[in-house]
């Protein structure tokens, strides 16, 4: 069943050489992400969760082990535009309107004009930003800007979405709303999503699998399969099942920290 695996890391190692000596950002990381999964990476800063995501995106180069995305190397997957990447900041170009920001990757990838216009309409609808294509980024709230950046990552139909703390800079109310929207979007598009966060409720609420990581060296300490149904209203966060998973994530994070002292 290898065809069902979207991302596969085997014995992944990444060591940065710094002035203070080598830093083990990732050590012996093994993980398979199945197609259609929503996998969250959680851990304290320095645990390598973002570095791992960047390895998937071919923005960092592992010093050992192997990583495949859609069955090919991360570099080939990037060249094939296999994934959309959402950064912590929306990173919209201030000199482009929302519509032209979303069309930017499409222009780069050489889509024709009619196709671009139609795709921009579709993805803006998907993130509930229809009617905003003529607005400039500064005319939108932070949450709307981040939604526009998600639309931009969706525009070219990559079936993998890599998200690096996309809602980290937003307040809790906006974050709840966007989490809900993201789940609906995931249900509708059936994408594979890898999601980095440092919020336990966010990880538990969104994910089918939660990968708990710990620092020095950056490694995976626990992988939790969520028993929650795919359909999740916001108040699922008050159910005993939800709290139990959250508890297990917290335990995992604490165990990882014990090595520090």
């Amino acid at each position: 069943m290898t065809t069902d695996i979207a991302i596969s890391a085997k014995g992944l190692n990444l060591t940065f050489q710094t002035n203070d000596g080598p830093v083990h950002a990732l050590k012996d990381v093994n993980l398979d992400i199945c197609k259609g999964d929503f996998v969250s990476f959680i851990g304290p800063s320095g645990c390598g969760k973002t570095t791992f995501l960047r390895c998937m995106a071919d923005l960092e180069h592992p010093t050992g082990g192997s990583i495949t995305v859609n069955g090919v190397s991360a570099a080939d997957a990037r060249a094939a535009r296999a994934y959309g990447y959402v950064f912590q900041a929306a990173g919209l170009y201030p000199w482009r309107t929302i519509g032209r920001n979303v069309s930017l990757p499409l222009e780069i990838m050489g889509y024709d004009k009619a196709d671009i216009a139609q795709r921009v309409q579709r993805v803006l609808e998907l993130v509930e930003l229809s009617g905003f294509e003529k607005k400039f980024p500064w005319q939108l709230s932070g949450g709307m800007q981040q939604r526009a950046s998600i639309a931009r990552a969706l525009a070219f139909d990559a079936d993998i979405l890599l998200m690096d703390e996309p809602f980290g800079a937003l307040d809790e109310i906006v974050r709840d709303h966007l989490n809900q929207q993201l789940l609906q979007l995931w249900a509708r598009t059936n994408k594979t999503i890898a999601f980095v966060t440092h919020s336990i409720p966010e990880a538990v609420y969104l994910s089918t699998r939660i990968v708990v990581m710990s620092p020095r060296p950056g490694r995976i300490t626990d992988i939790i399969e969520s028993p929650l149904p795919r359909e999740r209203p916001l108040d699922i966060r008050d159910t005993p099942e939800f709290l139990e998973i959250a508890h297990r994530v917290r335990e995992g994070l604490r165990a990882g920290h014990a090595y520090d002292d």
Partner: protein
Amino acid sequence: MRNFLPVFTVLMALVALWYAAAVWLNADWAYDRAQRAGTTLTFSELVADTWAQDKPKLPAPHQVAAEIWNTTVEKKITSKRSLIFHSWVTMSATLLGFVLGTVLGIGLAIGIVYNRVMDMSVMPWVIASQTIPILAIAPMIIVVLNAVGISGLLPKAIISMYLSFFPVVVGMVKGLRSPDQMQLDQMRTWNASGAQTFWRLRLPSSMPYLFTSMKIAMAASLVGAIVGELPTGAVAGLGARLLAGSYYGQTIQIWSALIMAAALAAALVALIGLAQRITLKRMGMA
């Protein structure tokens, strides 16, 4: 016109100060003449005299204004005594030098940003080029170019370019490097080519830096053109008027050329400011 009153007040204060300074500086000559004529001056006679001398140490504002009026409105533009003719000569060298300097500056900046060898080697030379006094190098440029048969507009424009490329290089290197790592990573995730990253990210990001640099470059370019006119034997241009004025003690002519140069610089810089406003507005950045 919210700031009209403050600007007007400061201008009036400067004019008043100028008139007072004219009395003070030109008084010696007025007393001298009165003594030789065997007369004494009342205060009002003294003031009237100091504001109306032929070759005053400091001409009064109305004398300069009259001279500018005479040499612009009253003279034909083709006349050698027309200040508009001389301004045009200087402005054409300034503009050509400015364009050359801006193109050279942007070219060097792109090289510095994209080429590691240029990054390591060019910048120190760019800075060194500006530590050489332009007054020392200008005659040599004129003489050398004259020897190979190039004279007229181009040597002056090259001196202008020499002064004006510097702010553009410095500003554009900073501007082209202004996209942060995240924006560059984002381009990588789309597998964008170097050219796409340049045209769609680096160049638009550098626009505010470019216009700021161009304003400084334009002012520097005018200085370069005027300096370039000094060693050419004072044929034409505002620099030539300044030089001829100082040969013959024509202080009124010097001051009128100076004010013309200042007005020219202000107009050219304002023009860039206008282009900046229009461009940034169309880009949604202002």
